[in-house]
């Protein structure tokens, strides 16, 4: 009964989304506030209806109602509650429903929070958001109904892919989808602005909070995914340049470019066309990501819940919506103002360089992901594009971006002073060189790229600190004055500093971990041991354990250093009773920012167990850095100047 109510609510949501489009459009054309208001009401209604459908599906998962096909295929009554809840979005159908929930949720948010947008722009935004909602809801209702019943319900479900039974992965999709779909608002605002013929500083200011919110969510979502891959796949790696990872990384790169170009549009009225283009591209890449992940056109280590026939439908949706957006852009963009002039050495130029390099990086990731498909379609030859390709193309582009980064915020608008910037950055430069030399002196083996990478990380971090020091005139005015300036800094400034600082921390961790990780593996009898770096690892015991829906060998591993105990961990090798897959639960031992990473492998003849041990120096920074970046986004978002509507009041005052 509840499932039927949910299915009905889903259909209702589709109807309401269509009404949202019709009412908002009519409201816009007739300049009727009540009609446009009704459109906003429909947006809110559509969100509530999807929420009801989502709750119904979650209920079916929680009570293990196997008469619902989706639950029967993806759940199991023995699964712990958290994973039954997370199972709601673990399947194709469920994840598309989550997508729709986010899409209508953002639609309702625009309708509710966009009170200060000009009436026409607001109506067009709500209409576009409704159109996107209607398209994806139609797809969900007609091609991927998550609440369809089975005529003969099974007694037990077929369970979720056991790799997904993990807390980080349970919460990873909601963040990721909020990020992906948050870009839809930016897309809708861009379409509305093109229709209205109004792209200016104020518009750019309205776009920013939405882009920031989506970007922050996406940052956290990708980080959670990387952390999951790190400790769940049991290879010690965290980023594989896998198509599914790339699919989430492309919208992130575009959104990052958008955040920076929107600043130029807002502050200086320049780059308007480019900013609109990026606003359209960000959500287009999100949809491309959904298509790549869900259609299974690419083989991936993360390919779950794949369905090729539905992939075609998703491709059509992508083609039509993105195609319409970009056609509109091609038609209207020439009418956009060209904006202010600026010198080659200026803040504007620095931000344009940021955008060029991010665009080239996105092109790299896009090509690396799709080229095998294109090449095979055209010539029939299959090729692989793996991590070495990205190391040779993406990395140099990114290094160029990171080397330039600290200079950007120190340059003046319109016409900057290169000499002055160098003067202000010399301390940071010394710190960077010092960090590199320290690595050269202290860390073995000597590796040139690792040392340069450490210097780059030091450069980013000291550059971010320099920027704050410059703003507060630290060491040049009395401390009290510096403190006053420091506390008076707008949150937007802090947000930027945190984002850049987080990036530096990430670079430091990524470089250190990839360059100086140590790996050791031995087939150990119980009581045996092996050395990894300065640490000794001993396998004290292996016991069979029965989990809720798996059987496991649980190892007791003690880590010592020079005979002193460091930590004890219990890695597991699990065999799931339904399906029979095996997974590893890694044992992680934290030493400062570094990890000792322990994997218990299969049982060998003679009662030995394959034990893999990794020393992953500074690995925590890889995940800490992006979290700080995401936090920076949220701090920036809390800036009162960025709240909706402030832009318009300022513009009026102008």
């Amino acid at each position, binding site marked *: 009964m509840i499932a039927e109510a949910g299915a009905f609510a889903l259909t209702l949501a589709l109807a309401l989304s269509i009404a949202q489009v019709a009412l908002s459009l009519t409201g816009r054309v007739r300049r009727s506030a009540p009609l446009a208001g009704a459109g906003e009401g429909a947006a809110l209604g559509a969100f509530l209806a999807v929420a009801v459908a989502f709750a119904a599906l979650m209920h079916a998962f929680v009570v293990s109602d196997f008469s619902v096909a989706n639950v029967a295929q993806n759940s199991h009554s023995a699964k712990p509650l958290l994973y039954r809840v997370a199972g709601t979005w673990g399947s194709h159908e469920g994840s598309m429903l989550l997508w729709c929930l986010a899409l209508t949720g953002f639609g309702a948010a625009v309708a509710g929070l966009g009170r200060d947008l000009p009436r026409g722009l607001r109506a067009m935004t709500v209409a576009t958001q409704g159109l996107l909602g209607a398209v994806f809801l139609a797809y969900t209702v007609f091609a991927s109904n998550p609440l369809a019943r089975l005529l003969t319900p099974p007694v037990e479900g077929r369970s979720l892919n056991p790799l997904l039974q993990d807390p980080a992965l349970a919460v990873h999709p909601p963040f990721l989808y909020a990020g992906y779909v948050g870009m839809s608002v930016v897309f809708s605002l861009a379409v509305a602005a093109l229709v209205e013929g109004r792209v200016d500083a104020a518009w750019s200011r309205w776009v*920013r909070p939405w882009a*920031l919110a989506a970007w922050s969510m996406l940052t956290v979502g990708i980080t959670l995914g990387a952390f999951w891959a790190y400790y769940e796949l049991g290879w010690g*790696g965290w980023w*594989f340049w896998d*198509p599914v990872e790339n699919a989430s990384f492309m919208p992130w790169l575009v959104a990052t470019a958008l*955040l*920076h170009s929107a600043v130029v549009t807002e*502050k*200086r009225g320049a780059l308007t066309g480019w900013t609109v283009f990026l606003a359209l591209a960000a959500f287009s890449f999100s949809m491309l990501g959904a298509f790549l992940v869900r259609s299974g056109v690419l*083989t*991936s*280590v993360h390919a779950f819940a794949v369905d090729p026939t539905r992939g075609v439908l998703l491709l059509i949706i992508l083609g039509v919506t993105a195609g319409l957006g970009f056609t509109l852009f091609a038609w209207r963009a020439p009418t956009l103002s060209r904006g202010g002039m*600026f*010198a*080659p050495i200026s*803040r504007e130029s620095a931000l*344009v360089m940021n955008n*060029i390099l991010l665009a*080239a990086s996105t092109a790299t990731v896009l*090509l690396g992901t799709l080229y095998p498909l294109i090449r095979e379609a055209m010539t029939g*030859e299959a*090729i*692989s*594009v*793996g*991590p*070495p*390709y990205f190391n*040779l*193309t*993406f990395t140099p582009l990114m290094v*160029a971006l990171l080397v330039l980064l600290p200079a*950007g915020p120190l340059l*003046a*608008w*319109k*016409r900057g002073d290169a000499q002055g910037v160098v003067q202000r950055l010399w301390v940071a430069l010394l710190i960077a060189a010092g960090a590199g030399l320290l690595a050269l002196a*202290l*860390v*073995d083996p000597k590796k040139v790229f690792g040392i340069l990478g450490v210097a780059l990380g030091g450069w980013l971090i000291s550059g971010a600190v320099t920027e704050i020091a410059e703003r507060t005139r630290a060491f040049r005015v009395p401390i009290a004055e510096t403190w006053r300036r420091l506390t008076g800094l*707008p949150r*937007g*400034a802090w*947000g*930027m500093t945190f984002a850049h600082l987080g990036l530096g921390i990430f670079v430091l961790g990524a470089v250190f971990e990839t360059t100086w990780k*140590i*790996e050791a*593996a031995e087939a150990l009898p119980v009581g045996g041991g092996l050395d990894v*770096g*300065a640490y000794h690892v001993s396998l004290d015991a292996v016991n069979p354990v029965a989990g809720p829906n798996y059987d496991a060998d649980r190892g007791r591993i003690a880590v010592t250093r020079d005979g002193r105990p460091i930590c004890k961990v219990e890695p597991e090798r699990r065999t799931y009773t339904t399906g029979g897959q095996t997974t590893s639960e890694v044992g992680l031992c934290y030493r*400062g*920012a*570094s990890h000792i990473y322990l994997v218990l492998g299969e049982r060998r003849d003679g009662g030995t167990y*394959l034990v893999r041990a990794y*020393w992953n120096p*500074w690995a925590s920074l890889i995940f800490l850095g992006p979290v700080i970046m995401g936090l920076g986004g949220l701090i*920036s978002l809390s800036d009162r*100047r960025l709240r909706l509507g402030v832009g318009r009041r*300022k513009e009026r005052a*102008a």
Partner: protein
Amino acid sequence: MRPRLLLAALAGVACLAAASDPAERLPDPAQEARAREIFRDVRCLVCQNESIDDSEADLARDLRQIVREQVKAGKDEAEIKRFLTDRYGEFVLLTPSFSVGNLALWGVPFLVAIAGVTLLFVRLRNRTPDVELTPLEAERLRRLDDDETP
């Protein structure tokens, strides 16, 4: 982490050639390290986008054995890779070749960057202002509460 600790942690393990599985490992650490280097560039053909360095599949194990045998026999990386591509096609290598067919793949990223920079400079040369911010622009920026980036 303090540098000295790090130093201690890394001392004496300068070139520990670890292996994914001791049962497969070559006795000579230098050869083993070379084999591992090659593994990372070889695709496990039956897996979902994993290198044979990562994969536990039987085929990956067989490929590892082939590569190790050839390393042991003294063949160099290029020879081993040629052997693999002759047998399995270019698909088996994770690094796409620098061939005409892959021109766009390798070229476009840098082309985008170069085109962008060129466009920027052409635009700027034609329209470079010779003044700093006008009082009006400065006032507008100040009102926008100056120079925040996101």
